[in-house]
């Protein structure tokens, strides 16, 4: 029996092993950070956290001020009662799944992940034997199924090229860590000049050091942005980003773009369902392949849908509500 609990803000604690995932606390001695998105990374930590080098670099650029123990993928760290290995999660650069082996069984904490992986990440690999799978399930409904990657690349490139042909400036709304660089990577072969919002720009260096091709880009400049491919976030576009460019068209790049309602909510011209999470079908498929003793489902209002499908596969599961659950 391994105790898996919610702890901190969106974090998880294996109390018997003093191991924590994605939060910072004195309750756990060994903290593992899956990736550098704001809802997963801490901003300070008394003890050095474990993470990949790329995650550490990205965290530092986003304000993390303390120490880290860097781990490579596949490298095993020996703790008093467990050994821990990181696997590439395919979500964003540096993103890792944390694999914990103990005498009482093994745990795989996925963090956020995507399979097939983002080409702007280190890929996706998973251990063969897992007893407890703690998985995110952000898009856990069968209405979410991502298009083949080639089609998405085509959509992104065509939107940029056609919009420019029509005399408009194309603007991609994409989260500034991960999605923005993935879109840039998709556009790189077009060699179109590109400007990215400052918050995303400073992270691009880490991607380039990791050998990810980001194309012909520079930081956003209000005076020179017209006629270039622009990349920014939803919130920036509402706060004056390129507001001087009257003729522009917006494309929203997100898994949520699979919902027709986001067109009107964000007043965009194009919806490109490009997600950095795996879709419903990949999730069920992975559970089937791993066939764990138990699946612990997080990050979804629809855990019951996943559970319904896991029941049919005779896989035990539960909802680990990171939103509402208090200490238990």
């Amino acid at each position: 029996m391994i105790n898996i609990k919610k702890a901190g803000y969106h974090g998880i604690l294996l109390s018997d092993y003093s191991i924590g995932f994605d939060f910072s606390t004195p309750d756990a001695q060994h903290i593992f950070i899956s990736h550098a998105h704001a809802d997963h990374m801490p901003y300070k930590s008394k003890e050095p956290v474990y993470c990949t080098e790329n995650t550490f670099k990205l965290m530092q650029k986003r304000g993390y001020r303390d120490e880290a123990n860097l781990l490579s993928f596949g490298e095993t760290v020996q703790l008093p009662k467990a050994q821990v290995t990181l696997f590439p999660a395919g979500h964003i650069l540096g993103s890792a799944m944390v694999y914990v082996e103990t005498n009482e069984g093994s745990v795989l904490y996925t963090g956020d992940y995507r399979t097939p992986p983002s080409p702007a990440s280190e890929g996706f690999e998973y251990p063969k034997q897992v007893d407890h799978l703690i998985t995110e399930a952000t898009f856990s409904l069968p209405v979410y199924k991502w298009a083949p990657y080639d089609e998405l690349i085509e959509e992104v490139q065509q939107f940029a090229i056609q919009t420019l042909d029509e005399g408009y400036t194309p603007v991609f709304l994409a989260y500034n860590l991960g999605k923005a660089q993935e879109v840039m990577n998709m556009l790189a072969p077009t060699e179109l000049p590109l400007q990215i919002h400052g918050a995303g720009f400073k992270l691009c260096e880490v991607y380039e050091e990791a050998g990810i091709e980001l194309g012909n880009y520079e930081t956003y400049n209000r005076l020179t942005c017209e006629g270039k491919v622009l990349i920014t976030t939803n919130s920036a576009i509402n706060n004056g980003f390129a507001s001087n460019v009257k003729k522009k068209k917006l494309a929203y790049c997100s898994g949520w773009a699979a919902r027709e309602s986001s067109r009107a909510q964000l007043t965009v011209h194009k919806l490109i369902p490009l997600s950095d999470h795996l879709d419903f079908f990949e999730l069920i498929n992975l559970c089937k392949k791993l066939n764990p003793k138990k699946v612990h489902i997080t990050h979804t209002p629809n855990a019951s849908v996943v559970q319904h499908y896991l029941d049919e596969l005779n896989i035990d599961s539960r909802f680990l509500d990171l939103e509402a659950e208090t200490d238990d």
Partner: protein
Amino acid sequence: MSNTFKNLAETAQKILETRSNNAKVAICARYFKSLDSDKDLNRAAQFLGEGAFSSISGERAVIGSRTYSTCAAEFCEINYEKVFKPSKTALGSSSEAIEKLMHNIDAARKKRSPAELTLAEVETIYKAISEVSSRADKQQILRDAWKQMTPLEIKYFIRIMTRGSLRIGFESRSVVSAIAQAFGKKVKDVRYAHMITGSIGRTAVLCKNDRLDEAIFKLFHPLSFMLASPIESRAIENIGEYIAEEKFDGMRCQMHISGNKVELYSRDLNDITHSFPEIVNFFAERNLPDLVLDGEVCVYKNDEILPFQLLQKRMGRKKPSSKIMDKFPVLFIAYDVLFYDDEPIFEKSLTERRKILKKLAEQFNLPISNQFEISDEDSVEELFERALAHGNEGLMLKKKDSTYEYGQRRKSWLKVKKPGGTLDTVMMYAHAGSGKRGGYYSDFTLGIRVAEDERYEEEFIPIGKAYGGYTDEEMKRMNKRIKDLTVEKYGPTLGLIPELVIELEFDDIQINKRTKANYTLRLPRFKSIRWDLGPDDTDTLQDVERMYQEKINRKRLKQDENPSFYFEND
């Protein structure tokens, strides 16, 4: 193949994906032009503009969302309760959920082999659905149809069938523009033909064949009403261009008269003649010329216009008893004339129409509204107070030089109304929104307090459902709060801890025995979210009862001096 349903679905999708309205109209116009046969043009315009059947045909493919949703779940071999419902809630649309499931799920893909159905074949399917009544029969037809369609076709097939909006940001007004553009005619002429024929498909065919002038107004075919905008929503440059009438606390009605044949139509163009025999007799006996009048049915007794709540006792009755007729006598008060001297006169100005109406009223002794000149805001204020004293809802301001803009809500007619009242209520349930509000909880059931009321066990009971009156920001803030207050989940509905207080504004209170409170509010909407109040501050059922009684018993100014209408009794 331009006459396939797939082509229509793809055109609709392209219109959805286009932002500029001009560009949307141009896409639709190109599509209409590409259709070779008149029959297909008729079908395409009707499907995009009106639904499966033309609104005047009286035919309907009656099919509920549960019927087609359970059918779709079965088709996709997924659990309706456990999988379909959450999918629908997440997207805020059953038809969109069905489109995605049909695309994503292997079991559904295997059953479908798109057959490029023609518009005519799809029309036949809609007819078949309208001719069967059992759920099983309807579902059998749906299954057979879906097997031959792409997911996109299925989505629009459902939206057209249910006569809801196609949700492509393209309402029937835009379809009219597209028809005009496709065949080089004036939008105004196409709109006129549409209003007269009541069929957008037929209008398109007439337009294409240069025969718009054949769309002639016919008596006993009701035409769409001209509607008023709230005065708050419009900027008025010169109030002197308007006249004022009192806004009667009654029911809008259009009357067609030819000899002793008289028919009455409600605002949704239903025939309501049978409910009001005394009005029919009154007009049938007067040897009137052929006429169409626009006006209001009111309960009128002892020189007083009585509240709308009493008129409700007369509405929907096929044959009212003489007792009911004695108790709630009704009167038709005319305020506009639309057909006179054997021709429609919508294009004449209000001043000219009024002259005709006045002449008719004098000659045949008909009740007509009183009109008042206004010069400034003070005179409006004074008239408004008097209208309320008469028991009426407020004022109508009508632009003197305006034509009768059938079916439109613009600034030629303005309504000045006083809100019926406000109540502090508590939010009890939140319902998932659809369309633009998909993904949010946007509709709310509001309750009033009955904690100290011996008639009830509960602490709060529902009094109304509201889905407007707040900004997007407020909606988001409420959604955050709702998350914390949720205690139960029933599909798309959340049961909440009664905490959040909403000041609700409404137009009127009506008795409704089918509700727990026995009362319903007319047009309830948010006035403000009272973050400062708690559930103990909310109003009680007794407050509602008191407001209703005050409304009914309110002293009404008799129609003697400065009446709201006039009518020389014999």
